[in-house]
Each structure stands twice: as C-alpha cells, then as structure tokens.
C-alpha cells in the first residue's frame, strides 16, 4: 500500500460519494454544489496524473464557469422539490439495476485490460505543462482550435437568440 494508492482510494471515495449525493439530493442547489466537489476531486486526480494544465482548466472553466452558470439558472428558475421517480414507478429500479450492470461490465473490461496494468514510465516535468500542450495545440490542432472559437461564438449567439424576450407579441 503505497502512499499513491491510499491517496487515490481516498479521492475515489470522495468523488463517488459526491456523485451519488448529487444524484440523490432533492435540492438542486445542493446537487450543483456536490457536482462542484466532484469536479475538484477529479481535478486533483488530474494533477496526480501529470496533467497540470488540464487540472487548472478543469477548475477554472468547468467548476468555475460552467457550474456558476448552472447556479445562475437554478436561482432564476426556482427549484421544485419533486419526488424521485415520480409518475413512472418502475423507472427507478430498472435504471439502477441497469446502471449498476453497466458499471460492472465496464469495470470488468477495464480492470482486465493488459496495457493498463503495468508500471508507468517516468515523465519529465514538461509533460502536461502548458508549453508542451500549447506546442501540440497550435501546430497539429490549429484548425480544430479555430473551429472551436467559432463554435463558442455560435453558442453565444444561440443562447441569446433562444432566450430573447418576444416583446412584440404581447400587445
């Protein structure tokens, strides 16, 4: 039991617990906050996996921007407390069973994967740094990079258009 493994198990537990709590909690704000916790845990895992840049991006964009947006909308719309399961009684048991089944299958596959078993090679500190990622990003993946910027523009315009108040019809 090395320190790495202990650390990893602890983080795993926290992440899974946060996810379960997100699903189960009745209050939407609580769900959002639990999700944020999950993201932070995963970011830590990234750091453990030599993905420094991505970890910071995760925290900044995902936990910082996206979840904040979620919280804004939750506040805007108000949260109803609804019963879990609701109208369709059989949906929840079936979903849980199947979901666990899926989890089991995935675990089965992934744990037995030969490539993923072995010891990992040592990496330099350059691996996962912004500079190295930037090098790859702006040389091989320049076109997807530019397209992504257009995508963000389009999403922005789309969001504004969809939520525009239709004043002219309310005369």
């Amino acid at each position: 039991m090395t320190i790495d493994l202990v650390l990893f198990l602890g983080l795993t537990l926290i992440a899974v617990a946060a996810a379960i709590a997100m699903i189960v909690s009745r209050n939407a704000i609580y769900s959002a906050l639990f999700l944020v916790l999950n993201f932070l845990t995963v970011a830590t895992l990234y750091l453990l996996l030599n993905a420094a840049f991505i970890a910071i991006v995760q925290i900044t964009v995902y936990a910082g921007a996206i979840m904040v947006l979620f919280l804004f909308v939750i506040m805007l719309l108000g949260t109803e407390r609804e019963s879990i399961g609701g109208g369709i009684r059989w949906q929840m048991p079936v979903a849980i069973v199947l979901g666990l089944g899926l989890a089991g299958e995935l675990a089965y596959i992934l744990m037995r994967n030969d490539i993923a078993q072995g010891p990992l090679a040592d990496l330099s500190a350059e691996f996962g740094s912004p500079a190295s990622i930037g090098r790859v990003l702006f040389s091989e993946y320049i076109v997807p990079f530019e397209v992504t910027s257009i995508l963000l523009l389009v999403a922005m315009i789309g969001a504004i258009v969809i939520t525009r108040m239709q004043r002219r019809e309310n005369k």
Partner: protein
Amino acid sequence: MNIPPAYVLTLSGILFALGIIGVLIRRNAIVIFMSIELMLNSANLALIASARMFGPAVEALRGHVFVFFVIAVAAAEVAVGLALIVAIFRSKESIDVDEVSSLRG
C-alpha cells in the same frame, strides 16, 4: 505517481454509470443536465489516464488536447442547453421533464 491506470479507468466507468443513473432517475431538467456533465467529466478522466499510460511519447499529449476541446465544447453546450431550458420554462412554467410528453402515443 504510480497508480495502475486500470483503476483510474474503472473509476471513470463508475462515474459514467452514475451519470447515466442520474439522467434516468431525476425529473428536474437541470439536474439531468448536470448528470450529463458528470458523464462528460468521466470521459475526460479516462482520456487523461490513457494519455498518462502512453508516457513520454509526445503523441500522448493528444489526450490532453482532446480534453481541452471537450471542456470547451461542454461550455458551449451548457450555455445553449440552459438557454433552452429557460425558454421551455417560460412557456410551460415547469422544468419537470415528465411534463414534456406530447409525443405520447
């Protein structure tokens, strides 16, 4: 850090399954959306683990770049999706997805 990547991948699988359960169980549209984000996140985790697996080769950084793009797209998607939910709320006064059942046959 010397964690067998298999464990990380298994964790990502479990988070993915939890995300699916969340989508299927909850009726609140926003919570469903958040479960989807959880699923995306688990995919990112798998990618990073795989990138680590293939070590010092510079091609391994592709995993990181991929995650970068996933996060960017997720951001765009969230924006639009939440805008849609807001628009639906305006007309239906509710974000219970079970209300959206006009296609009932």
